[in-house]
């Protein structure tokens, strides 16, 4: 291994004591080390970015520092003293707070109640009824003060279940900030925040570091790193790779993260296209609660072609994709697959007709987390693929799956492990393999790379290119504009339920496309 990053001055020998230091921290799951002897120092007043692919060990590391998970071996030093956090509560009492991607909010309580949950303002030794009222208003005032201080746009009396994910993220951060922590862990905090709220968060982070708080910041958004970070540590396969300054160039970071040289991110789309495989004619969806309106959509996708649908969250692009699969009622218009009109009432109708839809929410809609990768991958193939049949033939299926597993670049030795043990990137690969087990010619992918690290993204891109090279027609719905621009032949922009613009690959221009979003 040769690494050429710029050296960073070593502070520990003479400088201040690290807020948290890990020494040889290791976590084993069975024989696999999710984290393998990682020693890092998190200094006061420093934003320390953790960077790595999904499954590199970032989540494991922060879960142990925050007390959610116990190390198999190794030590955590808090301001130089060895500590053992047996619970999240204990870590909190020692000034370590974490904001995870999975929220710990109670949906039916208000923002204020959630913020003060578990550490409600103390009740006086009064009659209960009166004391309750007092405590409630105290909680609300405290929450309001906190929200104002942090500069968020939140209503303390709103029920958490009515908020968007971005707002819920802010509630989580408020919760963590209620007691000033010495170490704040932020796990992809901006993943669901708007630009405005991200800026508010960055301002907050700068104020905190100025006051000496140490911050561990996990992100996949590379453009944020130089804006907010000081130092950055790269993890790969559970092992520590390097610590570099946060302004290290992006391609260098990708190399460190993946251990590979990134020649090209996006494969070249294939040039020759076949006949039309998917045709939507004036499709309008039946209005229903929770379904964004989709009106009068017409599009075609040819064999070998990748057509992208871009648009803001809530523009209806996800619902349009689901409608092709029979998940929403089509009020008007027709959907044709390979020249035959279909009216799917259940996903199985659509698969039979030759169309597969890969959902955006892999945990709720895509995979059975308790079951093995093998069982998840083969599931629909048992009814629709070459593996179909009333009786199972696991050995034959395993041979078939081995091919797909190579195609999605998944580790074939881990086919028997339950999906819950895998990182987001690997789960997404399982979902992708699931799409490949049946004989269909039209694929609709809804956000196939959401929450996935760059290494897994690249595998998924290569796989989509292979599918297209084999003559599949692909409709790609994504919120990631660079990805759409890199992969697709044509791009359609959706806004408020209608297709408003179409771009050919030759005319791709980020600004022109973005203009059509609004």
């Amino acid at each position: 291994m040769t690494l050429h990053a710029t050296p960073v001055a070593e502070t520990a020998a003479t400088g201040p004591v690290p807020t948290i230091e890990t020494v040889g921290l290791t976590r084993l799951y069975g024989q696999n080390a999710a984290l393998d002897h990682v020693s890092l120092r998190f200094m006061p007043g420093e934003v320390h970015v953790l960077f790595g692919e999904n499954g590199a060990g970032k989540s494991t590391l922060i879960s142990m520092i925050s007390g959610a998970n116990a190390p198999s071996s190794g030590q955590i030093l808090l301001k130089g003293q060895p500590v053992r956090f047996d619970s999240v509560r204990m870590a909190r009492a020692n000034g370590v707070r974490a904001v995870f991607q999975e929220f710990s909010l109670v949906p039916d309580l208000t923002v204020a109640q959630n913020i003060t949950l578990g550490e409600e303002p103390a009740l006086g030794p009064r009659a209960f009824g009166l004391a309750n009222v007092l405590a409630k208003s105290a909680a609300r005032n405290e929450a309001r003060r906190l929200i104002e201080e942090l500069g968020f746009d939140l209503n303390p009396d709103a029920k958490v279940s009515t908020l968007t994910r971005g707002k819920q993220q802010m509630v989580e951060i408020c919760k963590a900030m209620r007691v000033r922590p010495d170490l704040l862990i932020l796990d992809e905090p901006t993943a669901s925040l708007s630009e405005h709220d991200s800026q508010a968060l960055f301002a907050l982070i700068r104020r905190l570091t100025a006051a000496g708080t140490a911050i561990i910041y996990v992100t996949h958004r590379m453009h944020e790193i130089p804006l907010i970070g000081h130092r950055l540590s790269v993890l790969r396969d559970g092992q520590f790779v390097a610590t570099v300054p946060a302004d290290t160039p992006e391609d260098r970071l990708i190399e460190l993260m993946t251990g590979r040289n990134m020649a090209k991110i996006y494969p070249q789309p294939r040039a020759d296209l076949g006949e039309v495989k998917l045709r939507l004619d004036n499709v309008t969806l039946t209005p229903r609660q929770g379904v964004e309106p989709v009106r009068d959509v017409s599009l075609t996708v040819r064999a070998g072609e990748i057509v992208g649908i871009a648009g803001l969250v809530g523009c209806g692009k996800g619902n349009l994709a689901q409608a092709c699969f029979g998940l929403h009622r089509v009020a008007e218009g027709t959907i044709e697959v390979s020249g035959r009109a279909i009216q799917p009432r259940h996903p199985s109708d659509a698969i039979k007709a030759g169309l597969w839809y890969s959902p955006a929410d892999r945990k709720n809609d895509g995979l059975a987390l308790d079951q093995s990768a093998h069982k998840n991958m083969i599931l629909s193939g048992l009814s629709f693929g070459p593996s179909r049949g009333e009786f199972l033939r696991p050995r034959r299926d395993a041979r078939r799956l081995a091919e797909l597993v190579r195609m999605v670049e998944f580790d074939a030795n881990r086919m028997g492990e339950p999906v819950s043990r895998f990182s987001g990137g690997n789960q997404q690969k399982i979902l992708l393999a699931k799409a490949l087990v049946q004989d269909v010619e039209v694929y609709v992918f809804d956000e196939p790379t959401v929450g996935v690290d760059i290494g897994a993204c690249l595998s998924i891109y290569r796989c989509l290119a292979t599918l297209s090279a084999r003559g599949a027609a692909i409709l790609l719905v994504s919120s990631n504009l660079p990805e759409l621009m890199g992969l697709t032949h044509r791009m359609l922009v959706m806004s408020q339920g209608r297709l408003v613009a179409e771009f050919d690959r030759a005319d791709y221009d980020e600004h022109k496309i973005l203009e059509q979003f609004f």
Partner: protein
Amino acid sequence: MSGDVSLSTRPAQATPGFWARIVENRDLLALPAMFIIALLIFSLASDKFLTTGNLTNVARQSVYLLIVALGQLVVMIGGGLDLSVGSNVSLTSVASSMVMAAIFAANPNDPWFALWSGLAVGMAVGLAVGLVNGLGVTLLGINPFMMTLGMSSVVFGITLYIAGGVPIYGAPPLHGEIFGFGKIAGFPIPSLVALALVALAWFTLEWTRFGRHLYAAGGNGRAAELSGVRTVPVRIMAYMICGMMASLAGLLLTARLGSGEANVGASLPLESIAACVISGVSLAGGRGRALAVVMGTLLILLVQNGLNLMQVGAYAQSIATGGILIFAMAIVRR
């Protein structure tokens, strides 16, 4: 290796500790551990416990619970629960006895016809109860716990109503001779039936598409639907299988007792769920194995038998069964 502040060093891979591995696999180890503990305690407490005669006895007694527990397993894998198995057994017992008694009385020369009619009615009862449960849970979207609890009361009421609160006698003696005490090549027929059902359940769950669809429906119903699995018929089928298993147990029990009894199934819902849960079947669905349930059933019967031999009485047995259930839940919770 120049330039970077710190580079990874990789010491020899440590093997995970013995205890760590035990804790990680505790849901798999809980059952054999409890088995060994039970065997140890009871064989020390009573020298009659570890005899061939006694163990054969335990195996024979476990047949009825085993069959019901297999049905319960199928429903639980699909993410459901069936609290109506006890009432189902009771109704099967009473209804089949009444049909057999009536037909046998009308036509004493053809006991076979009476016997088959009784069996057919019993199975039909089980399937019907299962079908209603399944339709309620899937099409009406009623929580399985409430649906089957309600059905349990309904079915038990029907049982008491048609039986009038008395045991039903008058089935052809053939019934008891074959299905109660009959033997083929020295093996009791109820045990052979149970063994066949274990094999069938194992095969269905592990080697058929229906089995996979059932695990998928219980593991993540939404994901199963999006994979083209029609989960509604799969789950209805699970309740019908469970109902049919309960009625088979009911028919065998009736043959053993020689009469149709309304209160024969009272303890079965709890015991069958306990047998599943201590075998690692998830209450959330998607997990569980037929062979483990055989072990779980045997454990419950062993404990009851051991307590019997220690002469602690029937009340303590009920306490023990509930205690095992709670203990198992505490161990396997995740």
